């Protein structure tokens, strides 16, 4: 299972993680997200800089 980290940029604040992932060409159906070791939904939005861990559970 491939894992990597992504950092949200200012222009992405207020957008759902689903939309952010799609704009970064990451398929939201193939991954699970973690923030500070806690699983988070892709419907979530942020208004601050955060680092997220992407777990590729379906091979791309």
């Amino acid at each position, binding site marked *: 299972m491939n894992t990597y980290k992504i950092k949200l940029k200012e222009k992405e604040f207020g957008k759902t993680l689903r939309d952010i992932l799609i704009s970064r060409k990451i398929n939201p159906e*193939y991954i699970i997200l973690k923030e500070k070791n806690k699983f988070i939904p892709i419907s979530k939005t942020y208004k601050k800089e955060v680092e997220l861990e992407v777990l590729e559970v379906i091979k791309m």
Partner: protein
Amino acid sequence: MVKCEKCKKEALIYLAYGKHNFCKDHFNEFFEKRFKKNIRQHNIFNNKDYIGIATSGGKDSMVLLYLFNKIFKPKRYKFCAIFVNEGTHNYSDKTEKLVTDFCKKLDTKLIKSSHKDELGVSTQEVSVNYNKKEGSICTYCGVMRRKVLNILANKENITKIATGHNLDDECQTVLMNLLDNDAIRFFRTGPVTGIIDLKETKPRIKPFYLTPEKEIAAYALYNDIPFYKEDCPFYKAAKRNHFREFINETEVMHPGSKFSLIKSFLKIKDLCDIKKITNKINKPLNKCEICGSETSGKICKSCQLLKDMKI
């Protein structure tokens, strides 16, 4: 915030095919309910069976072992884990340790052996000089592993072998067999494999037959079930990878396609006179001239592959 459809908590996962939003607890409930329903609906096993759970250390088989312990141990069903060490460098020993530790934690009986011990040759050794015309190294490894699982099941008087094959695996298999024009393999697959009753070849059962791969991964991660996260070093050789990509892309465009494919397959299987289509299976089975196992030819597939390699 998107809420769980069953409670007011924040939803953690969205399942596009059913437009379901679930929190962790209700996802677990949904997941386990479908697992039990699949076993019941397809009459996969009952309390008279002794189930050997083929445990590779990957997410599917580790979740399967966990669920057997959670659901069927309290009901006193008889089961154990089976691990087959393929002898793949920098891989098999790590998965063996993971499975051994998990079985200890769950207090579950574990039966172990290896390709080398049972067949005299490891997958790593086969990978050096196998016949590429027969397929990839995964063809050899799969045939060998199935044979070793069966040898161990017979030694232990196991009645059925449970595997972690999931909805995604089954979609790939159905499409592959269809495009290979292989009627016997096409109809042989299902929640319980096989068309005719065999004495020595134990039926393989698939409790995750209708469970998508992503949900098994999510269940494992949400519930801290350990699993080996690296791919087998030979992973890229597998023919099914092309079909995996095609089916996943279709599912994203048209959610529910994986379920539709498998449900259509089950309907076709139900409507067909399988014995007429696969007339080969009406012939009595022979004993393999080399190892004595059941085979439709003179030599079983495993012995044939190894014989061709002069092993």
